[in-house]
């Protein structure tokens, strides 16, 4: 089936099988591999994207459900060499190790900071509970959220 959707500002079309997920469409059809395939059942948040400004796991959304919708992925955050403050903060704070969870976490953090520019540790933990990181032990991720929030205030 043919799906037409707006991705990172541009209208795109892709031919997918009816069972394909939005994640498969982004990764395999559009070559946007920043959204990651770690669990593919909505447990780890590595494929977090915005659909019409709502944070979703792209693996849990059927490609067909994205018809006519607006999708924003991690690839939309930096403009050229200028990183988004959340990306910059992850880099500075040591919140990145293997980096596989990083794009999903950065999207989730950017989403949190769109509504709360001074989140407490508790708020951060609650907001990121759906993003698994196997490397860092999360402490430096919490540091990065505070650093990004401060920069964006």
């Amino acid at each position: 089936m043919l799906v037409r959707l707006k991705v990172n500002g541009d209208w795109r079309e892709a031919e997918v099988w009816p069972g394909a997920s939005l994640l498969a469409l982004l990764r395999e059809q559009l070559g946007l591999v920043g959204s990651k395939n770690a669990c593919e059942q909505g447990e780890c948040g590595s494929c977090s994207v915005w659909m019409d400004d709502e944070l979703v796991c792209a693996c849990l959304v059927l490609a067909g459900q994205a018809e006519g919708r607006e999708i924003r992925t991690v690839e939309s955050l930096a403009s050229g060499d200028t990183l988004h403050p959340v990306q910059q903060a992850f880099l500075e704070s040591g919140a990145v190790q293997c980096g596989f969870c990083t794009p999903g976490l950065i999207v989730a953090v950017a989403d949190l900071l769109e509504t709360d520019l001074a989140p407490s540790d508790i708020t951060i933990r609650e907001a990121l509970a759906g993003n698994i990181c196997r490397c860092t032990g999360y402490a430096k991720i919490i540091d990065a959220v505070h650093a990004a929030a401060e920069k964006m205030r």
Partner: protein
Amino acid sequence: MSTKIREHIRGGVGEHVRRVDGIPKVKGQFLYGSDLWAEDMLWGYTVRSPHPHARIARVDISQAVASPGVQAVLLAADVPGTSVYGLEIPDQPVLVSDRVRYQGEPVAILAATDLETARRAAERVSVTYEVLPTVADMEAALREDAPALHERGNTVKAIRIIHGDPETRAEVWVEGYYETGMQDQAMLGPESGMAVPAEDGGVDIYVATQWLHVDQDQISPCLGLPKDKVRLHLAGVGGAFGGREDVSMQIHAAMLALRTRRPVKMVYSREESFVGHVHRHPSRIWMRTGATRDGDLVAVQARIFIDGGAYASSSPAVITNATTFAAGPYEVPNALLQGTAVYTNNPPCGAMRGFGAVQACFAYEAQMDKLADALKMDRAELRLRNALRTGSVLPTGQVIHGTAPVRELIRRCVDLPLPETSDERDPLTYPGGAGNVSRGEGLRRGVGFAVGYKNIGYSGGFDDSAECRVKLFATPSGPIAEVHSAAAEVGQGVHTVILQIARQELGIDHVVLHPADTMVGSAGSTSASRQTMMAGGATQLACRAVRDQLFERVRRWALTRGVALDRDLGIEDSHVVAGGRRLAPIVDFLDTAIAQTRVYHHRKTTAMDERGQGDVHVLFAFAAQRVLVEVDEDLGLVRVIHVATAQDVGKAIYPQGVYGQIEGGTTQGIGLAVMEEIQLRDGRILNPSFTDYLLPTILDIPTFSSTLVEEPEPGVPFGAKGVGELSTVVSTAAVVAALRDATGRELNRAPVRPDDLIGLTPPVRPRSA
């Protein structure tokens, strides 16, 4: 003639640096194995046995072959070369021809135009199995009436370490039995890679792995190709933790690529990943510890069983570690330590962060607490009294020649402040907080402590050397050094460390990495906390060779001007300096590039003799950890509140990375302590998903205080010890000790379940006769 370099280099050793792969990773542009793509590429897929133990009676691939979009379906008979592979013992079939030994074992592989077509074709491969009884228990597997799973029987390796007089008398004895469960590495990036057929009849394999050259060593005989026709390239690695030490999809993708003459990509699903890599060995440890009334350790006796599952993988090395470390980081004059790794029909077990030292620490630290209680002695004091030091003799007879700051670690750890408690708490901070199950009633707090140690580098006489090539050349914007190492960056930061060392040694800012591949010699495995020492050591040697050649050019140039440069030469800010004065920019001496290749060897070790004696390990690192927990006594739910760690690092080359290793490694230890276990029933995995295999989330982690003890290790580059594993070695033991303190229960099995804490489940009993 000596050479001197500036002590402080921007981005050099010990500096706060950004990781070299950080920008592409935060932008989502870093290409992992699962992100690879090629024109005309096919997708590979694996058909796996649903049975843990069975004979294959018949395989019919005709329907799969006839499926539209399917380009190849291959069976064991299609393996071009050797039919088996393995890290230490080649006992694992590339594809099963007759006998399946674990659930999920690969039986057939196929390639199709897309993943969904491949999946559906796999369902049309018809395999007729004759199911055999499952050998699911590691001790039952050793009974005489158990079916032999391999020609060599069901013992992978048995070792015995006899030290002093193990039958000696002691005034006080404590005894215990301990178990740990099977833990999954759960690296977020699934097994993945791509094989591309080459015009010379060979193949290029792009793969997320921990050791390119050992993959090459195993893959090429199976493909029937010489090594130089099997070229490996490191794809982005989404975490490893030991799970990528063994070959997964490499041979399969290469076979499909060579057959179809098209690039073939394979990516495991999460469920497949649970059977696609080895796990942490479940263990059963019986231990008896004797001491004088004053608290001096007299003897340790231990019997250790670990379940190796269906194939050997690195079980021989894991049981060697578990057994050699079984007496803990303490001076023990007499010991009898026996370890056995066993074949069963459970999923194969092998390397995971901590590598046998985790299981041993869980037992010996519980014993130390028991002993302290029996002696009515402070737990830290007992450890301080018996701690290893430089010059101590281990149960293997090995003398510790390097640093062993165990007392310093214990003192520093104990001194780290506990977090302040506040009366007003968000319900989310209580045990089980996200479930909204508590308002803070019935909470018990406990503090646990553990000290542990582990080897750095490969042991037992193995020369796991590392090669590095460094090229220094001029560009219009200044000198650039390119470092070529095959060391696998798995997230831990070795590529950043290599560049720091190159900057430090060469005195220039602009240092770049050549992609890691097999066009340079082996760097050895990214495991055993060894790459800082080994790949870092090779980088240092190669840079020094480049520098020496540069200075040779400088001296020859000076002689043509009638100047003999007998003073120390150095490099500062891309200039050659003599006696502190700038001579000329180094690009002036780089009309042609300078390239040097060097190999770093660690000191020689020896294998153990029949009494388990030998100079077995290269060097040791130590850690001490204190954990504060809270337990909901009604529900048995746990919150780990705070973890204080003191770690022996020798020298922190990349400090931010060191703290990251401590926090991440601790979190994996917390996982094994309270939630992570592959649940098995009769050889079958019951929870192969992130829904059912529980991993620590950001809601589960404590706050951390970490302190580094930096006593440089003699004889290794910068005195730096590997840092990746130590926190994992101690944290499971420390968390469970804290839970014992909170509840007064025995808790001799990790992971501890809510049922154990509210008393529904009695402690496990030894299963040995």
